């Protein structure tokens, strides 16, 4: 029996863009993995299935979605929430409670359960997701992986027959993503219908019994590993390396970085990887001087000049159009560079568009442009540039990085996406005690002992080719 029936569904945003039409059915107990490039409407369809569209969105929906035979149009939102649970992309943005316990209780209260039943389900959920020891903690102090588990616990404790997930893995590091995938597989086996909208194909597709549905052809873009800076394969041409020596960073009483030393060659693309909380972002902030530290960070014996592209592009966007955003407070802008940036970053057609209505991926590229237009002397630092970007965009991004590096500048990026890291020239692995290893990408990827020491592992879907660094 089909639990979910989507018939000729279309959705038009008030601004004019539209998604669909699409039709599909999902059987009871099935695990459906929906893939698609960013901006192809995955999130929109996920919201239509859960009923958030049309209940709290103003856009125009046509066609119909039936859950257990009930139309989402005529069923009230709170009833729909009992039929289909929804887990969102960014776990920290969906935490409603002051404590882990409260987070789970809020959803159970709305079901109208009595106190004993709520306690029972609370304990069961905490146990199942291994959150017992965290029950009194503020959800905001948890790691990304723990938060996503909590979000899943809060929804599944309501025991909805259908679970819809919108990009549940995109914010998670390798181990957290693997763990979450395991939970989803367990849920599916226990009879819950699971629909995951996720462009990271690797984890979910490797599960047994998962049906994959592609929303568009773009999703099939394969990664091709490309040597980032072909002009200097061994990175010896870097005349001005970035030298980080013995830096220490404290936040309150906790020490985030301790006596870290690292030399990064110019003219190369370096990826810094490590589990959440190992100080990747802090290191970038220290290099730019935004983070006070002890020790020294120099290029040629002087304080370096790097541009930093933050993880969240919304932090720096406030101008009326893409053009004015890029050129804001730039003295004598290089208009040739400007035109070139628009072209490679795919922003040309948005020159006069208000930046806030761009997609997340586009905003990120815009943020990169605002930094590059300033021509930072020594290079750029990118904090988690792959978040919200699909395979094709990641690929373009790495090409751009290679191009910057080929002019002799340094590009450093942090990421928990090992696909992306495998496209860099060099990888620096941060572990609990600082730099676990640093070296050429192929050497690092090939040495499993390094990853074990950093508390990580190279997942099976990183191909042997990628490990060896063979150019596609």
């Amino acid at each position: 029996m089909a639990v979910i029936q989507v018939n000729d569904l279309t959705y038009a945003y008030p601004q004019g863009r539209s998604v669909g039409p699409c039709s599909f059915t999902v059987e009871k107990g099935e695990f459906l993995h929906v893939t698609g490039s960013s901006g192809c409407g995955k999130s929109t369809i996920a919201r239509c299935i859960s009923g958030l569209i049309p209940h709290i969105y103003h856009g125009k929906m046509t066609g119909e979605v039936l859950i257990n035979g009930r139309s989402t149009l005529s069923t009230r939102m709170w009833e729909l929430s009992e039929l289909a649970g929804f887990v969102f992309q960014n776990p920290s943005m969906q935490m409603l409670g002051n404590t882990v316990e409260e987070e789970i209780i809020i959803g159970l209260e709305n079901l109208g359960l009595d106190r004993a039943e709520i306690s029972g389900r609370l304990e069961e959920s905490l146990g199942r997701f291994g959150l017992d020891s965290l029950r009194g903690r503020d959800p905001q102090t948890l790691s990304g992986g723990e938060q996503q588990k909590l979000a899943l616990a809060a929804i599944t404790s309501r025991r909805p027959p259908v679970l819809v997930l919108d990009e549940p893995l995109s914010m998670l590091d390798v181990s957290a993503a693997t763990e979450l995938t395991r939970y989803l597989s367990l849920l599916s086996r226990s009879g819950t219908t699971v629909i995951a909208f996720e462009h990271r194909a690797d984890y979910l597709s490797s599960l047994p019994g998962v049906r994959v549905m592609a929303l568009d052809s773009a999703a099939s873009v394969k990664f091709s590993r490309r040597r980032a800076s072909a002009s200097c394969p061994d990175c010896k041409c870097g005349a001005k390396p970035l030298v980080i020596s013995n830096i220490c960073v404290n936040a309150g009483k906790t020490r985030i970085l301790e006596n870290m030393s690292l030399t990064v060659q110019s003219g190369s693309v370096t990826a810094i990887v490590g589990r959440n909380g190992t100080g990747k972002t802090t290191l970038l902030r220290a290099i730019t001087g935004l983070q006070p530290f002890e020790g020294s960070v120099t290029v040629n014996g002087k304080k370096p000049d790097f541009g930093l592209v933050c993880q969240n592009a919304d932090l720096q966007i406030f101008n009326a159009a893409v053009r004015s955003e890029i050129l804001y407070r730039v003295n004598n802008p290089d208009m040739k560079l400007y035109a070139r940036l628009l072209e490679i970053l795919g922003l040309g057609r948005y020159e006069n568009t208000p930046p806030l209505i761009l997609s997340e991926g586009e905003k990120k590229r815009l943020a990169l442009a605002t930094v590059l237009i300033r021509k930072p002397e020594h290079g750029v630092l990118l904090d988690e540039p792959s978040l919200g970007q699909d395979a094709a965009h990641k690929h373009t991004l790495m090409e751009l990085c290679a191009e910057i590096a080929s002019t002799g500048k340094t590009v450093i990026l942090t990421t928990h996406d090992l696909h992306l890291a495998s496209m860099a020239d060099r990888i620096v692995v941060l572990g609990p005690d600082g730099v676990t290893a640093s070296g050429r990408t192929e050497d690092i990827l090939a040495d499993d002992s390094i990853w074990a020491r950093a508390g990580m592992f190279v997942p099976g879907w990183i191909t042997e080719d990628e490990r060896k660094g063979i150019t596609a």
Partner: protein
Amino acid sequence: MKEKYFSTFQLFLLAFFAALIVVAKIALHLPLQLSGHSGIFWMAIIIVSSRVVPKPGAASLVGLTSGIMAAFLGLGDLGALNTLLSYSMAGVGADLALILLRDPENYFCAALAGVFGHMAKFMVKWIFGMIAGAPAGFVALGLAKALAGYILFGALGGFLGALTLRALRRAGFFTYLMEKK
């Protein structure tokens, strides 16, 4: 379903604006030793909220919520009740002014609404002083100066609010909001 006066989104939005006020109050120390200077951000956020949620009462709700929060966080030195009332009145004052002035994106209207809100806050402090029985001219022993400061910074705050609103409109923020109920 019966339409609620404030949608859930609007309520949450106003709650976050209130938090923004509290954070601005704590985090921002402008290099000014003038009474009421924190009103710049304060009134700016209240003016912004009154446009983002274009219903009478929005500013008051932001004021009230930020008042409760400020009371919890122990801000203000004349005690929690005074803090609660003065924050709330800043919102109520701006709300009342906007019933008359209507358009918070107009620089003059926004600045005047800012003055109203900030003066309402001043009056709470003043009345508190009177009730406690402090002698005349007690408010910092320079009532006229303090009042002028409140008016000035209220106006600046309203002005900044209007500027922010215009920048938000140009950057496409209201298009972003259009879709959300």
